[in-house]
């Protein structure tokens, strides 16, 4: 093929010549070969001549005008050159005119589309395309004024854009099209400001009718609203005169209507910003705004930027005397209880101005302002109270009619402010203030009911039921009771009839649990597989290693609790395989994981009768769970101990000794020297790692079980967060549990406080570690509900050491966890459930250390909470640090709140 050789030689003129000698069919036949050549050339080093020759050859092989138009449009880097003119001249005039029409229909500003079209129009004299795209491309071309290659027709003379437009013979035909639908030119996405600039410039010179342009532009905006930023630029460039502004009132009203509707839907700051600037740029007159005042009122309920905008509009309407008093009241109802201080302060400022401007409205304005008395932020209550006091004084007797209303509203004030309100407004006789109730009967916290641990149902009766329970554990690995019963069920029914159980488990093993790194309850799945004799998964092989684990070095990813769980599962598989033990000892009798001693005595005695030695890890777990029977006076405890002493086996004697000794001694995890020294290294953590003394068991338990309460070697960062089964493994030693893996670097795992409710419902002393976890939870403010719940339940069980928690909070807030505002947020949530006294006892201990020297950041919020708590529970007794702070000069929120607290404590 000669064409290919010419391309490879880079002979453009030769290619054009050769194309001229071929018939259309022959040219079409070359297309595939040239595409292949393109692929080859594109992959190797090539010259510019080669590339241009190839381009020419490929263009020439498009046979119909349509195909040629598509090719030109899709090759953005193609340029109109002298050779292109030669190539196009090969075709008859009618063909070229058709190509111009195709290109003009969907002209783009990219590549050579416009240049080719213009050349063809000027060359053939065919009709000028009239599409909007063509008009736009034309304006861009005249603005950029790209240079034409020799023999290419097109362009217009002139030094600048407007001059070129005036000199252009396309202008008389294309400009009216531009003016008729200016929106498409001005607001299209890839647009610059040039079309707008041209239109406005030509309008200024009288070439274009400015009135018509403005009218059409607004019509286009209503039909297809542009992005806010574009609208702003356009409206600024147009700079409408007042008359023109009034002339498009109808279009502007339609736009405002659309935009307000969109703002009512609300969205993120980024989403709504364009609508806000658009609305601003439309510059509605106050009278126009007054017509849609209800829409603006509704916006006050939306997100902060929307509400702020609406508030500004309404403020200006009020200043123009266009806001009815009823509507102002409604605006206050919507704004004054919002949490954003900025909005509330602005609204109070507005009410202040209203009252000053028109004393006749002062009474109503003050009743409006008094809505703020119900705000949860005490500083805002105080601001509103000051405002009321100021206007009450200014008005003398004229405000009196509203006094009862104000007095009633003052009942909502924080107790720290109610004395001042009573002085100002007089005591509220008919309505009882909280203080009255305090004097009548002593205050007592309302704490939640102590949750009773649920008893664990008896063993599972049938193999079919075991299968369902296993499926439930595989689907949800958080339920301890379901897991324990299912594990026991597998052992029991495998012992009774393994074939039946294997068959029943068939639907369950089809679906593997979601994968996890640390051991979790859903790993019960592998026991089910073992029952059926299925090929063990890789995880089951690892599980067997956990039995022999020797924790002398930190683990890489598995928790102590996880290793214990894996050891139990692996052991259960062995028990099933050997068929010796008919059931498990460690199944708890309560949902906390606690195991009734009498029940364990019965279970061991049953095994003794069968002559079966219990599996060691199962026995160890049973012992760790057994409820102590150390009450010497309790008769049933004595009976249980006596029954245990009668057991003959080693396991029985072990239990008897365990019960006699009352189980492993409880260990205190309070670190040495805390909290008076600096936190030990790594100090960046900002907390004192709990002490972990560890009990060495005699006779020893299997290592995995002994590690749970024994000497601790640490871990290197766990893969997964704590799970409820951790707590159920040590139902009488929660302090030891929390002292170990919990405070390793895992702390950052999301959702970690979720298990605190399980911890507080569990048994054993709650000391340093449990309180440290609660203090962290309060400061962290993730899963606040779970943390607050845990604090309140521990308080209800009378196991919350408020002194300890207070000292923990103080130590953490002073050493790198400076989030006093977050801590007071969580504590406020706790207090508002009715636990003011409990929270006060925590704050009373925490506050002194936080206020000395420079008070910790967020101290103001904490003091505000303290005022509320102390007032509500009637706490008295001076705190020297608070008094010292209150006596300082200045009007910072911290000092103000300290004064309120000092007064409340007097």
């Amino acid at each position, binding site marked *: 093929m000669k064409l290919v050789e010419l391309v490879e030689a880079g002979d453009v003129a030769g290619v054009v010549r050769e194309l001229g000698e071929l018939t259309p069919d022959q040219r079409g036949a070359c297309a595939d070969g040239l595409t292949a050549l393109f692929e080859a050339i594109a992959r190797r080093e090539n010259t510019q001549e080669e590339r241009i020759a190839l381009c020419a050859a490929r263009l020439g092989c498009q046979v119909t005008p349509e195909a040629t138009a598509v090719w030109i449009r899709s090759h953005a880097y193609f340029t109109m050159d002298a050779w292109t003119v030669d190539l196009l001249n090969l075709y008859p005039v009618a063909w070229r005119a058709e190509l111009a029409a195709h290109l003009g229909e969907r002209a783009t500003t990219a590549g050579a589309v416009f240049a080719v079209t213009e050349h063809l129009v000027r060359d053939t004299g065919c009709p000028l395309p009239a599409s909007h795209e063509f008009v736009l491309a034309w304006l861009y071309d005249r603005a950029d004024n790209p240079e034409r290659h020799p023999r290419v027709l097109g362009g217009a003379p002139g030094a600048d854009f407007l001059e070129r437009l005036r000199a252009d013979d396309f202008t008389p035909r294309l400009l009216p099209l531009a003016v008729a639908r200016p929106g498409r030119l001005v607001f299209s996405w890839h647009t610059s400001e040039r079309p707008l600039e041209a239109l406005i410039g030509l309008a200024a010179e009288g070439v274009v009718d400015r009135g018509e342009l403005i009218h059409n532009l607004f019509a286009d905006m209503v039909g297809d609203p542009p992005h806010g930023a574009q609208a702003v630029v356009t409206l600024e460039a147009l700079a409408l005169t007042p008359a023109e502004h009034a002339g498009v009132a109808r279009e502007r009203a339609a736009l405002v209507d659309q935009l307000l509707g969109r703002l009512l839907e609300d969205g993120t700051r980024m989403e709504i910003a364009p609508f806000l600037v658009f609305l601003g740029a439309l510059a509605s007159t106050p009278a126009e705004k007054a017509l849609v005042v209800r829409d603006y009122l509704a916006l006050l309920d939306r997100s902060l930027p929307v509400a702020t905008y609406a508030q500004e509009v309404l403020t200006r309407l009020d200043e123009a005397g266009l806001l009815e008093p009823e509507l102002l009241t409604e605006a206050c109802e919507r704004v004054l209880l919002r949490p954003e201080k900025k909005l509330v302060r602005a609204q109070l400022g507005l009410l202040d101005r209203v009252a000053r401007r028109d004393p006749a409205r002062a009474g109503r304005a003050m009743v409006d302002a008094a809505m703020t008395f119900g705000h949860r932020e005490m500083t805002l209550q105080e601001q509103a109270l000051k405002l009321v006091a100021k206007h009450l004084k200014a008005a003398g007797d004229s405000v009196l009619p509203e006094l009862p209303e104000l007095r009633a509203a003052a009942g909502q004030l924080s107790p720290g402010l109610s004395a001042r309100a009573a002085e100002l407004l007089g005591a509220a006789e008919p309505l009882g203030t909280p203080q009255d109730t305090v004097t009548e009967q002593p205050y007592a916290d309302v704490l939640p009911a102590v949750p009773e641990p649920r008893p664990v149902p008896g063993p599972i009766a049938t193999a079919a039921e075991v299968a369902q329970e296993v*499926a*439930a554990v*595989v*689907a949800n690995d958080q339920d301890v009771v379901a897991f324990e019963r299912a594990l026991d069920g597998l052992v029991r029914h495998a012992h009774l009839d393994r074939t039946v159980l294997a068959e029943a488990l068939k*639907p*369950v093993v089809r679906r593997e649990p979601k994968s996890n790194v640390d051991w979790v309850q859903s790993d019960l799945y592998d026991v089910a597989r073992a029952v059926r004799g299925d090929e063990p998964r890789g995880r089951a092989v690892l599980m067997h290693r956990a039995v022999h684990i020797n924790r002398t070095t930190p683990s890489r990813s598995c928790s102590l609790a996880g290793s214990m769980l894996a050891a139990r599962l692996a052991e259960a598989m062995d028990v099933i395989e050997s068929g010796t033990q008919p059931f498990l000892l460690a199944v708890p009798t309560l949902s906390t994981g606690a195991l009734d001693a009498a029940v364990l005595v019965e279970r061991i005695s049953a095994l003794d009768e069968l002559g079966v030695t219990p599996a060691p890890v199962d026995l160890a777990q049973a012992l760790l769970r057994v409820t102590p029977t150390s009450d010497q006076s309790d008769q049933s405890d004595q009976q249980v101990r006596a029954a245990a002493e009668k057991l003959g086996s080693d396991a029985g004697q072990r239990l008897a000794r365990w019960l006699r000794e009352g189980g492993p001694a409880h260990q205190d995890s309070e670190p040495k020297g805390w909290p008076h020294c600096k936190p030990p290294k790594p100090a960046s953590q900002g907390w004192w790692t709990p002490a972990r003394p560890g009990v060495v068991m005699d006779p020893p338990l299997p290592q995995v079980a002994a590690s749970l309460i024994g000497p601790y070697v640490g871990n290197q960062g766990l893969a997964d967060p704590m799970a409820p089964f951790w707590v159920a493994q040590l139902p009488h030693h929660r302090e030891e549990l929390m002292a170990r893996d919990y405070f390793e670097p895992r702390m950052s795992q999301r959702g970690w406080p979720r298990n605190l409710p399980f911890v507080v419902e569990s048994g054993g002393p709650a000391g340093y570690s449990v309180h440290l976890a609660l203090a962290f939870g309060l400061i962290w403010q993730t899963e606040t509900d779970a943390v607050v719940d845990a604090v309140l339940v521990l308080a209800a069980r009378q196991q919350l050491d408020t002194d300890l928690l207070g000292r923990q909070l103080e130590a953490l807030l002073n050493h790198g966890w400076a989030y006093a505002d977050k801590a007071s947020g969580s504590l406020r949530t706790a207090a508002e459930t009715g636990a003011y006294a409990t929270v006060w006892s925590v704050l009373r201990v925490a506050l002194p250390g936080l206020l000395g020297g420079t008070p910790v950041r967020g101290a103001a919020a904490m003091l505000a909470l303290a005022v509320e708590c102390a007032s509500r529970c009637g706490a008295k007794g001076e705190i020297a640090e608070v008094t010292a702070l209150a006596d300082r000069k200045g009007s910072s929120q911290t000092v103000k709140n300290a004064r309120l607290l000092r007064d409340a404590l007097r």
Partner: protein
Amino acid sequence: MRLTLMLSQNASRGFSGEGGVLRDLATGATADDTDLVSALLAWEPRIDVAELSRQSGLPAERVRAALTVLGTSGQIGYDLAEEAHFHRHLPFSAGGAEARNPRLRGARALVAEGAVRLDGALARVGRGEHVHVVRADDAGRLSCTCLWWAKYRGGRGPCKHALAVSMVRDTTTKAAR
């Protein structure tokens, strides 16, 4: 003026009813019952089950099942405070809501394929590698080995396997009568 506060277990679940009437839809009413009751609905503000039962000659429980079907297809509503059905036509096509319930559809498909094999208190549902075992406890409550059941344990109504078993049991007891 009465304010009714309803809480859903989870915002994402909305007021789905948690499959509470699925069993009635699957087994309770035949199309004939529903047509009959629908024709008898007089324009009383309150729909009286005893009266409908007398007029139609159907037992009250079948009338109730028929009303459930009419309720889910948007023909009548149920007033929680009055504990009574009332007239309320919604622009639903009859059976539209029912056809869109994936569990009910799945259950009907299982029954149609003959994939339910009863075996005393147990039933095997499904074919080939997808068999699940549905178990009836002493009180006749059904439970299953499938993932739906394992996750919600009946808290969101029966699974499609349990529904299919109810439908087959219902047909066999009716046939035995």
